[in-house]
């Protein structure tokens, strides 16, 4: 199969849908001739024109709100929010408006919008451009939250997000943009709410998201040399969460580690652990669960400090060993 990057997969998903559906358009900062801060929309304004690739002023609140209003009245907008940190400025429109409109209206109206945004650390962009705030959005009923970890998933999940009639927050990871993977040329959809077992194993389950999927897989390779067989589960969508796949995995391995880049305190890992604690898998646990997450500090600029802030492969290996040898 053809290999393309995560970034190209996202662009391809948008372009293919936009060719099919006139109601889909994209709005955001510098998405025109600049091609977006990370190059995701490069070439799109040339193909679709400035009416459908709408370069906006630096006005996140109005961008988000305009998308909500357009969605409510028949369009299907895609917002490109330049860095996920800026969701703070768009938050009122996303949380108090988009997420709740249908419910507040007694089931009338819908808000089919996708908010795509890059998150994560590792680029030296420091405290206001490196956060992983997905847990905030997960907490809000009415939103769907997706976090693809590879090019194949990104394309299929973005198609599903564009087809969905609800506001969808689509987290892209900056460090994944240039990673390559096999991606079909034709359009396809991955169901929202279906986890993917990225590696089968029998000794311990690692539930990891975004960048951490790759670190967990790397750790698994190392651990395999020592005879430890790791299963890596990627939820892919945080809301809705495929609890069943995680529960089945833990029942099989009897051991669970959760790894994400977001600050551990209040992070999504706590939710996964709770799902297990409340399920029949709890009885199957042979060791305490471990959570790996970011340290409770803003992301620092210095590259050594930045790296030390989020879990690395070595941390995952150590956690697995402790769990297995408990």
């Amino acid at each position, binding site marked *: 199969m053809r290999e393309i990057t995560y970034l190209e997969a996202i662009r391809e998903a948008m372009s293919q849908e936009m060719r099919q559906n006139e109601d889909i358009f994209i709005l955001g*900062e510098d998405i025109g001739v*600049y091609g977006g801060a990370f190059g995701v929309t490069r070439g799109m304004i040339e193909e679709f024109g400035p009416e459908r690739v709408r370069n906006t*002023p*630096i006005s996140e*609140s109005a961008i988000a709100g305009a998308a909500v209003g357009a969605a409510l009245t028949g369009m299907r907008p895609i917002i490109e929010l330049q860095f996920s940190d800026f969701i703070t400025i768009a938050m009122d429109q996303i949380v108090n408006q988009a997420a709740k409109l249908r419910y507040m209206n007694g089931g009338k109206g819908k808000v089919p919008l996708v908010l795509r945004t890059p998150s994560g650390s590792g680029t030296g962009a420091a405290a206001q451009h490196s956060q992983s705030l997905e847990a905030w959005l997960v907490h809000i009923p009415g939103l769907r939250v997706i976090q693809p970890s590879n090019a194949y998933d990104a394309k299929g999940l973005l198609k599903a997000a564009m087809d969905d009639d609800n506001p969808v927050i689509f987290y892209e990871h900056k460090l994944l943009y240039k990673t390559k993977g096999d991606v079909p040329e034709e359009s396809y959809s991955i169901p929202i709410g279906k986890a993917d077992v990225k590696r089968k194993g029998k000794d311990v389950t690692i539930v990891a998201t975004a960048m951490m999927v790759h670190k967990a897989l790397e750790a698994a390779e190392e651990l395999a040399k020592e005879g430890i067989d790791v299963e890596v589960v990627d939820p892919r969508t945080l809301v809705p969460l495929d609890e069943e796949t995680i529960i089945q995995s833990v029942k099989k391995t009897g051991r669970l580690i959760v790894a994400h880049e977001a600050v551990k305190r209040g992070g999504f890992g706590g939710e996964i652990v709770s799902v297990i604690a409340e399920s029949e898998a709890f009885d199957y646990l042979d060791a305490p669960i471990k959570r790996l997450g970011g340290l409770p500090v803003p992301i620092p*600029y*210095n590259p*050594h*400090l930045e790296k*030390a802030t989020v879990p690395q492969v070595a941390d995952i290996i150590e956690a697995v060993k402790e769990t297995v040898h408990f």
Partner: protein
Amino acid sequence: MLKTIKVPSHITEEKLVSLYKEMWLIRYFDEKVDQFFAKGMIHGTTHLCVGQEPSAAGAIAALKDIDKITSTHRGHGHCISKGANVNGMMAELFGRVDGYCKGKGGSIHIADLEKGNLGANGIVGGGIPIAVGAALTSKMKKEGYVVLCFFGDGASNEGSFHESLNLASIWDLPVVFICENNQYGMSGSVKEMTRVENIADRAVSYGMPGKVVDGLDAIEIMNTVYDAVERARQGHGPTLIEAKTYRWKGHSKSDAKKYRTREEEEEWRKKDGIKRFRDLLIEEGIFTEEKAKQLQEEAKQEVEDAVKFAENSPQPSIESLLEDVYA
């Protein structure tokens, strides 16, 4: 006695001479950062203010030491003009312990609270309400200082700009808003992103004076800011000043500058504000061409020394990671 120009009374000839050197210090600093960035010796991202030196240096020259500023992501010039030490700035860009933020902030987060620089900002428009709050302190505690709030043309489309100007106006706060209109917010040209001719025209909506100045004319900027600052200090409230300028370099690291032409860039480069200031000082008989050259060389050397300082400064310890989260 100056022949052709008028300057605020506290501005001496020596001050004008040092201002000239300061502008070169800003330019050489950012040129150096650009080189190191290209070589991968500075990581992350950085926004350079080459070409915009007069609006930083000229505006801040109008202030008293007690006055404060808020800056932006394009803030190296503001920082230097407000009295920061280039050693500490360069060390910060290198991520070292002797940097202004102990290596934790980097280019877009340099602050120098002792000198009254409340900080650069990674959030466009993020500093504008903060300036309003700092002016509120001055008013409530009768501290007598004024806050000079820098931001870009792009930032003037954020809600924070509009909310802040209104608030500062109704409370008659001692703050002066200075928009450095360098014609673009990243790739968005000001012509496409606003429908007013001047950002300063927006002042009308908030009931404050709006002034447009040539952002390459350090003297005009200094005088205009001085008048606005003294008006604010006397309790008559804020002013919105717009300095028309141009950034010579790309927005940040990887900018192919597809949204503007090389001809346009050339036009603006010809209007170099530093050269213009030099010619003025020579004409005024304040210094000679040789003296000007010497000052320029000194500025260059200071930047070289800053690089040495930064290179010799240690990396922060991993333990320091957990420090300074809470007061």
